C-alpha cells in the first residue's frame, strides 16, 4: 500500500502543475499513513530527478529512455504499466494536464481500471479516500470513490493543491530503464510549435474586459468593445468566441489561450468553465455579469450583476462616462 505520483516535464522543464500534484500526493500519503514515491519520464532527466531527491519521498524513479524524449501515449503507457505491475502502488496520482488526458485512460484501461480525472479535493474517512470532482462545467460537485482493488488512478486539477506545500526531505534516485521498442510506438510526434507571434499581450494588461457565449452573435461584439474603450481595458474572450472566429485566437483567455493576472477582470456572459477560470483566477478583482446566478464565474467574482448583459453593459458605459 503506497502512493505513486507521476510528474510531468518537457525538454527538461517541469510542468508548473507537477509540484502541486507532488504536494497533494505527500499530503494524501500522510493522511493514509503510507509512503509516496515519485516518477518522472524522459531522456537525460538526472537534473530533474535530483531536484525531486530533495523532497520528502520514499524513492524517486527516473525513467530514462531515448523513446521517452518526445512524449507518445504508447511509450508512456508501456513504461508506467510495467512499473505499476511490478511495484503495485495502491494509488497513482497525476496532474490533470493535456498530456495526462492523452495517456492516462489508456494506461488505466490496460490495467483494467478506471481513472478519476480532474479532481478538485479529497477527504479521508476511516482510511477510505473520497475524491471530489466537478460535473456540468463546474455547476455541480460530485463525491466519487474507488471500488475494488488498487491500483487506483486519479488526476488533479490545476490550482487544486498548493505547490508551496511540498515537504522537503531526502530521497534516493533509482534510474529505471523501461524496455521500449520503436515498433511498439504507433504515433509519430513532430516538434511542438507556436502559432504566429502574438500581437496582443493580455498578460501585461492591467484591465481586461472579457466576453463569452452570452453575447450570442458576432454583431454584438462592438458593444463589448465600447465598454472596453470606456474602461481603457484590453478586450479578451472565452474559447467559444474565438472558435467561432468572432475575435482572434490571440485574445483567448484560458488553458488553451493566455493566462492573465490583471488588476481587474470583467467577465461578461462567461459562465466560467474551468478551462477559462484557470486562465484568469490570478486577477486581483473579478467582476462578473451574467444572467445565471448559479454560473461558476460567481465563485471567483468580487462584484457581480445578475441580469441581461444587453441592458447592463450600455448602462455601465453610461455610468463610466458620468464618473
Amino acid at each position, binding site marked *: 500500500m503506497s502512493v505513486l505520483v507521476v510528474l510531468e516535464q518537457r525538454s527538461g522543464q517541469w510542468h508548473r502543475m507537477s509540484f502541486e500534484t507532488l504536494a497533494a500526493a505527500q499530503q494524501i500519503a500522510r493522511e493514509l499513513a503510507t509512503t509516496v514515491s515519485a516518477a518522472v519520464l524522459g531522456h537525460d532527466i538526472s537534473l530533474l530527478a535530483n531536484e525531486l531527491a530533495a523532497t520528502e519521498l520514499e524513492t524517486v524513479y527516473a525513467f530514462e529512455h531515448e523513446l521517452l524524449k518526445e512524449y507518445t501515449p504508447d511509450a508512456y503507457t508501456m513504461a508506467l504499466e510495467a512499473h505499476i505491475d511490478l511495484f503495485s502502488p495502491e494509488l497513482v496520482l497525476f496532474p490533470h494536464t493535456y498530456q495526462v488526458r492523452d495517456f492516462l*485512460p489508456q494506461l488505466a*484501461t*490496460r490495467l483494467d481500471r478506471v481513472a478519476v480525472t*480532474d479532481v478538485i479535493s479529497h477527504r479521508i474517512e476511516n482510511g477510505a479516500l473520497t475524491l471530489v470532482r466537478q460535473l456540468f462545467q463546474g*455547476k*455541480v460537485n460530485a463525491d466519487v470513490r474507488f471500488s475494488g482493488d488498487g491500483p487506483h488512478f486519479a488526476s488533479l486539477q490545476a490550482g487544486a493543491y498548493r505547490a508551496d506545500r511540498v515537504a522537503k526531505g531526502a530521497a534516493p534516485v533509482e534510474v529505471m530503464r523501461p524496455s521500449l521498442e520503436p515498433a511498439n510506438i504507433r*504515433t509519430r510526434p*513532430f516538434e*511542438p510549435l507556436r502559432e504566429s507571434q502574438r500581437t496582443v499581450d493580455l498578460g501585461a494588461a492591467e484591465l481586461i474586459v472579457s466576453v463569452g457565449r452570452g453575447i450570442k452573435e458576432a454583431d454584438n461584439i462592438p458593444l463589448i468593445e465600447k465598454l472596453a474603450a470606456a474602461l481603457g481595458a484590453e478586450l479578451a474572450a472565452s474559447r467559444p468566441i474565438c472558435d467561432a472566429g468572432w475575435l482572434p485566437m490571440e485574445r483567448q483567455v484560458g488553458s488553451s489561450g493566455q493566462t492573465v493576472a490583471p488588476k481587474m477582470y470583467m467577465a461578461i456572459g462567461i459562465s466560467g468553465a474551468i478551462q477559462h477560470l484557470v486562465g484568469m483566477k490570478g486577477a486581483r478583482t473579478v467582476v462578473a455579469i451574467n444572467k445565471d446566478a448559479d454560473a461558476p464565474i460567481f465563485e471567483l467574482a468580487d462584484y457581480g450583476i445578475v441580469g441581461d448583459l444587453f441592458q447592463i453593459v450600455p448602462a455601465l458605459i453610461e455610468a463610466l462616462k458620468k464618473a
Partner: protein
Amino acid sequence: MKIIVAVKQVPARDSQLRIAASGQWIEEADLAYEINEPDAYALEAGLRLKEKHGGEVIALCAGPERAGQIIREALAKGADRAIHIVEDTTALDPLACARLLAAAVKSESPDLVLTGLQSEDLGLGQTGVILAELLGLPHSTIVVEVEAREGAIRVKRELEGGWFQYVEMPLPALVAVQSGIGKLRYATLMGIKKAKSKEVRRVTAASLGLAPAAPSVVLERVYLPERTKRTQLFEGDPQQAAAQLVEKLRFEARVI
C-alpha cells in the same frame, strides 16, 4: 474512408440544474437535451473528411430513447447511417460505456473513429481514449486539424499555453476532437427530409453480448458547490446596478 463518429446527448448548456431527491444525480424530468458540443465538432470533422475523400460517416450513440434526437440531427447534417445503443449510460463508468461502443463498432472495421474531447455533463474526457485501447487503435486527443493521407492521418494537437504539435499515425486510428475544429454546419431542409429514410441500427448491451459489470468508480453523491467567496451583488434596475458597480470599482477596489 469509413468514419465512425461517437456522439453523446447531454443536458442543454443553459439548463437550470437541480439535484434529484436521491442525491445521486440531477433531476432529469424537466431538462432539455442537446448534442454534446465537442461531439458536434467531431461530426463536423468527419463530414468534411468524407466530402474530401469519399466514403461513409456512421453516427454512433449510446443513450436512452431520447438520444434519438441527436442521432436524427447527425443524419440530417449528413451522416449516412447510425448505430443507437439503447441504454441509459448515466450510471456507467467510462470503461463500461466504451465497452458498449467498442462492441457495437467492432464488426464495422472503421478506418477512423472520431469522438469529442469530453462530455459537458460528466467531463471525464476518457471515453475516446479507452475506446481506442479496447479496439487496439492508436489515438490522439485535443485535435484541432485532421488530414487524411494514404493509409495514415496527420493531426494537429493542441498543447497548453498556445503550443501545438503535429502527430502522424497509421489508420485505423481514433481521434478525440477539440471544439472549434471547423465551423459547424446546420442541417438543411433537404437533409432533414433525407434523414428520415436513413438506417438506424438499434442494439442493446444484451444484444451485444455484454453483461452488466460492477463499476470500478462509484459516484456517491452530487451536490451544488458551496460558495467560498462572498460576491457583492448589485441588483435593481440596470442603471442603478451599473452605477453601484462603477462606484465600488473606483472607491473600494480602486482599479479604475
